[in-house]
């Protein structure tokens, strides 16, 4: 009898915990875009991890392509350690960029090479400059993009491969506008950023649009959620501990209640 009431209680508890998730889920489907493709990622599931090689390839794409327009203001070069780069490599990457610093003792601003403690170099000085260089549309910061769009990396991948050469019949595009199956409203101001063979991979990975899109989405997921691996590993340990604890507690509680029932 105890078991039955407890099972009932569990069902109610689970339902109440999941109800909000179900309630808010349909609200996320953005209007006007196709549902993103359902991709398989190495970081899926409770034990999923990032693929270091894919992250490095994705960073290369960001650096060579995306970074021309998109900032990643929440990331520092020192964070690249998580991608498998060593300290020297990170210093060398940072050194490639020039930063304005100061004022020095004379009160002047001066230029210096980047340091691991610098944020990723932003392509524009400020939003106004970014807007004026891009037909008035500011290219959004990509640091949190994988969390800031419904569908996360699936959506990012879909968007990158979802360009159509021509708008469907009956739609006209202004100059600087492109048609994308997955964009809400289908019209996007970003030109198709990736094309086959555009970026050289040194590790023999196929240089296809799909592979590029997958790698850069992988990288953006890491950028948005750099502690995912630690989080999941901690979670497994914590939940196992709690399950054993709850088992002990249940046995103890049953022992105490034995004389009552």
């Amino acid at each position, binding site marked *: 009898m105890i078991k039955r009431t*407890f099972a009932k209680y569990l069902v109610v508890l689970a339902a109440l915990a999941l109800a909000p998730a179900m309630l*808010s889920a349909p609200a996320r489907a953005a209007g006007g875009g196709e549902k993103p493709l359902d991709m398989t990622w190495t970081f899926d599931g409770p034990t999923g991890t990032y693929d270091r090689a894919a992250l490095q390839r994705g960073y290369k794409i960001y650096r060579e392509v995306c970074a021309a327009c998109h900032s990643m203001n929440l990331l520092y070069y020192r964070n690249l350690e998580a991608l498998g780069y060593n300290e020297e490599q990170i210093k060398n990457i940072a050194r490639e960029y020039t930063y304005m610093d100061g004022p020095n003792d004379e009160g002047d601003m001066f230029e210096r090479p980047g340091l691991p403690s610098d944020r990723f170099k932003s392509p524009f000085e400020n939003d106004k400059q970014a807007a004026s260089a891009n037909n008035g549309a500011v290219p*959004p910061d990509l640091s949190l993009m994988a969390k*800031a769009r419904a569908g996360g990396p699936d959506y990012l991948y879909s968007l990158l491969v979802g360009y159509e050469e021509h708008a469907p019949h009956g739609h006209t595009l202004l100059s600087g506008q492109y048609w994308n199956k997955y964009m809400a409203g289908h019209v996007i101001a970003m030109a198709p950023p990736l094309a086959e063979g555009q970026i050289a991979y040194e590790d023999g990975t196929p240089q296809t649009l799909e592979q590029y899109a997958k790698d850069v989405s992988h990288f953006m997921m890491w950028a948005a959620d750099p502690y995912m691996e630690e*989080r999941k590993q901690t*979670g497994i340990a914590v939940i196992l501990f709690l399950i054993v604890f709850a088992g002990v507690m249940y046995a103890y509680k049953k022992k*105490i*209640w034995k004389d009552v029932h």
Partner: protein
Amino acid sequence: MGSGHREPFENPVVEWIDSRMPIFTLLNKEYGVFPVPRNFNYFWNFGAIAGFMLVVMIATGLFLAMHYTADTDLAFDSVERIMRDVNGGWLIRYIHMNGASFFFIAVYIHIFRGMYYGSYKKPRELLWILGSLIFLLMMATAFLGYVLPWGQMSLWGATVITGFFTAIPFVGEDLQTLLLGGFAVDNPTLTRFFALHFLLPFVIFAVVFLHVWALHVSGSNNPLGIEPKGPQDTLPFHPYYTMKDSFGLLVFIIIYCVFIFFMPDALGHPDNYIKADPLVTPAHIVPEWYFLPFYAILRAITFNMNLYFLAGFAILAVLLVEFVWRKKPVYIPSASAGIALLAVGGLLALIGFTGDSCARIDAAWLEANAGFKGLCGALQGLPFMSAETAPVSAKLGGVLAMFGSVALLFVLPWLDTHPVRSARYRPLYRVCFLLLVVIFLILGYVGSQPADAAIAGIPLILVGLAGTGYYYAYFLLILPLLGRFEKAKPLPESIHEAVLGKQIKAETKI
């Protein structure tokens, strides 16, 4: 509290303190030997669980506040700094963020449990009111807290919610400006919201203290809804319920941890990972899930309440009081007079509602339905029919309906007049209540959808209106009616007997 007779303790340190300030005697009395009905089910865990969540929120909130910066230029980045650079910051933030949801889950179950088993009835009315006050304070705290990360939903949620105040006639605009410290949600708003978000949990803590105090005066209700008659009906709180609560709490924490570690953003909205931008409104503003049913009630009122509607509404309200709330009408002499008034009131309300709705009906549809066109024309020709002369605009109506739906909780003990507490012995009440829960969830779904959404051709706004109607009818009409006419099943003699009887039945089955 705690004075009078005192049993000495064996431990000399405990005894030394207790003889000067009998705190251990008090704790033992209130949490050790305190008699509690022996027949609680697991739904009685949720009071303790909610208390635990309050402590978790205060503890994690304190540490987050040490790293957070309440400034519109820095707030978003300071939260991301917590997520990325502060040691274990991501964990603390996810515990706090999901903790709000799980606090509400615990409290909703706690409230629904109280309603199902009639825990609000005499002598526990004050206990219930204090609980309702905690719920109200929690809603305020959660709203304030959601603004702090300064994402898009923070800004626009705050804009919409503080916009409620502009619905108040005459002083609304000024009141909103006062609340915001400006003319839009901006830096002064953020800093005061942070201060208040820090303060309110301690106010909640104080009200929880009063809530528990009141509980320990009246004693707990139980699934049978009958008072314990003697020691055979109760058990000491410790170890029986301390251990049962601990076990239930652990199961709850496990589910909570699944969210923290494996789906930390499932209950949030992706737009809140975009920094607030006063120039761009998100396509679809939704509050956090725990506000959705109330949000649906807010949006359900899309019509202006003009003089016709209000006059009809007032007549219907008088009838409700005279014929439903009172055993015998005082001011209305006969039933036939009542029926006549019902017809008049209903007609007036209908005229007012239809006349106002005509203004929003699609013109092409009206053209095709000549009958309606004529009716609308006639109705709109009446004086005081226009939206401008309506004393209660749709906006104010929505705000009143929403706050009213929470206010009803406070007066629930006087709306449900039935002497029997537990739904176990009130089959009709049971059905009506469970329907309320289902409708509350449906309202939540309606609240999550865009305002113009429809399912199978039915506009969700109408579903919301019907749900709102049931919500109000449940409290104002169904409960008083059931109080007068529902025949309860026979109650058991005592808790002890009921528990024993069940056990014997279970054993003979085996």
